[in-house]
């Protein structure tokens, strides 16, 4: 069937699918390229030399993501000859601490915003929202001054953890507050009548019920810290303290152009996030739609 279906008036599935496939290829092509470069065993970004006067086949060969040889050399070298494992470990420590601190701060703050009436409640939520409208790099200079000059935490993990958890708070608080708002107040009142204190209510009733939102918040905090480049590159001075994204840049910055290492490293870095995402997937759907319709 070609063209519109006369009976239903809908575009036939063939064209629809062709359209979708086309855009899927466009959006996955760069990722595919990185993967292939990683497995090519070479450091070059391109797989084929294009002659001075390329014909159609030469051009086609140049854009085909297919290397001359397949090899795991890049992965092996990145993990053994480069300090990549150290950087991964640094990233893991920073991301884990950020997640714990970020989730804790976001949950407690969101609970207060959801349940208590206090002066500045609305203004607080609004300022969180407004803070999300500015590009993060705008904060670079003030954050640098606060962390390195005032707190003396430059070139340290603690400084980065602080910055990451704090910058993730606005999104996480909005997320968590929306979820807390859907938990009926009677459940808490019922717990009060049962004799529970605020702490008991928060940790034993509210948090377990908010698991989906906690999962989303945790994933977001983790990803923020794990993938972040600019702040880490600004703060960390010693090569041994680099996080993985900063380390990656090391391969292709300035005088180096080890695209093979870069590609292999990128894939290794994205692995934990992908695994975490898969693990938390069942919570994510319910967490992200929370507050829309209460089921």
């Amino acid at each position, binding site marked *: 069937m070609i063209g519109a279906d006369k009976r239903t008036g809908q575009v036939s599935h063939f064209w629809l699918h062709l359209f979708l496939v086309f855009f899927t290829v466009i959006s996955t092509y760069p990722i595919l390229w990185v993967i292939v470069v990683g497995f090519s065993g070479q450091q070059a970004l391109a797989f084929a030399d294009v002659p001075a006067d390329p014909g159609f086949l030469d051009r086609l060969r140049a854009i085909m993501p297919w290397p001359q040889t397949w090899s795991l050399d890049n992965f092996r070298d990145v993990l053994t000859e480069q300090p990549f494992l150290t950087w991964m470990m640094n990233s893991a420590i920073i991301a884990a601490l950020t997640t714990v601190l970020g989730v804790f701060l976001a949950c407690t703050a969101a609970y207060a915003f959801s349940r208590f009436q206090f002066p500045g409640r609305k203004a607080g939520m609004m300022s969180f929202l407004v803070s999300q409208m500015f590009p993060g790099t705008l904060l670079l200079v003030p954050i640098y001054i606060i962390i390195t000059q005032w707190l003396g935490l430059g070139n340290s993990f603690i400084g980065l953890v602080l910055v990451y958890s704090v910058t993730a708070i606005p999104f996480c608080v909005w997320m968590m507050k929306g979820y807390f708002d859907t938990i*009926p107040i*009677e*459940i808490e*009142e*019922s*717990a*009060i*009548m*049962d*004799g*529970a204190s605020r702490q*008991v209510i928060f940790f034993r*009733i509210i948090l*377990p*019920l908010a698991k989906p939102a906690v999962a989303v918040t945790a994933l977001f905090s983790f990803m923020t810290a794990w993938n972040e480049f600019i702040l880490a590159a600004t703060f960390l001075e010693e090569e041994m303290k680099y996080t993985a994204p900063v380390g990656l840049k090391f391969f292709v910055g300035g005088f180096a152009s080890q695209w093979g290492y870069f590609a292999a490293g990128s894939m290794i870095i994205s692995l934990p996030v992908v695994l975490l995402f898969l693990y938390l997937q069942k919570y994510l759907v319910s967490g992200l739609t929370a507050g829309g319709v209460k089921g």
Partner: protein
Amino acid sequence: MAGIRFDKVAKRFGDVSVLEDLDLDIRDEELMVFVGPSGCGKSTALRLIAGLEEITNGKLFIGDNVVNNVHPKDRDVAMVFQSYALYPHMSVRENIAFGLRIRKMPDEEINRHVDDAADILGLTELLDRKPKALSGGQRQRVALGRAIVRHPSVFLFDEPLSNLDAELRVQMRAEISKLQHRLKTTTVYVTHDQVEAMTLGHRIAVLAPMGAEKKTNLKQVGTPLELYDSPRNLFVAKFIGTPPMNILPVTVDSYGDSVHHAGLRVPLSEGLKGEAAAYRDRPLLMGVRPEHIGGREDHRDWHDPVSLKGTIEIVETVGHEVIIHVRCAEDLIVAKLGAHRIPAFGEEIELVMNGDAIHLFDPDTERNLRRHTGD
């Protein structure tokens, strides 16, 4: 066990006054029902006892202690919510045990108490289920279990049956009544349903929303029969009873021994004559319950009944009786007939009214003219 006393209690939210000048004594072991239309402050009054709301003015006693500033957990009261408010992530057993666990009771003791409560409520089979795997009635039972397991001195029920279907509601109503009779715990039960109030309450407190000119919400406190037979004011008269009492505007004649309205003349009983004397030639409101108007053949025992004629507009067959709405001049009067004959719509019918059973209300104060014992 303990009684509860409201002493001139008021509750205001900012400028909005919800409860004013509430004086009420709830006796030990009594089942007191707060009933009234929405906005009458009945739930607020309950939440004041629970300690979930702060008292603006006056004193609240549980037992001999003023509890105005006592934290809910130290008041020894348990509450059942309309929405059940179970903890969704805990099993039935954990739900019931939660209050005991908070109080650091040893495990064996907790288990014994939970098993006892589950046994009383027929929940033994369901102890390991989560609330979402239970039906509405079962969830309500778990909420009850959570309350009784602590053996508190006071139970508070906030419209606990309004989320259940009609059949289950009647069944649970009976169970709550039985449970209270067995445990003899002082209970305050809030409902907007006057049938529920009448069937459950040892005594009933009828509350009305705070109006601009009213001094207090409390319209009357009494046993179900007292409220039904001797309503102190128009509000209680209209609120208690289904179908509700007929209210007709009447004028007292110049001798003060009868009232008349649109061709209807009702002679007054000896007791009412004295009270009506002050109202000669002035308007009053007359109240007659539907069961005091009926077919002549059903009520041969009525002494000197008043007859009235009208056209039937609505017929509701209940089974043991027939409720009819009859148009008499400009008024629509509700009456009850025996089930032996179902009349037709539009039929002309002759009815009798028991003149001894009427109530007269002052149109300004809405007070019932009849003197009551205990006034």
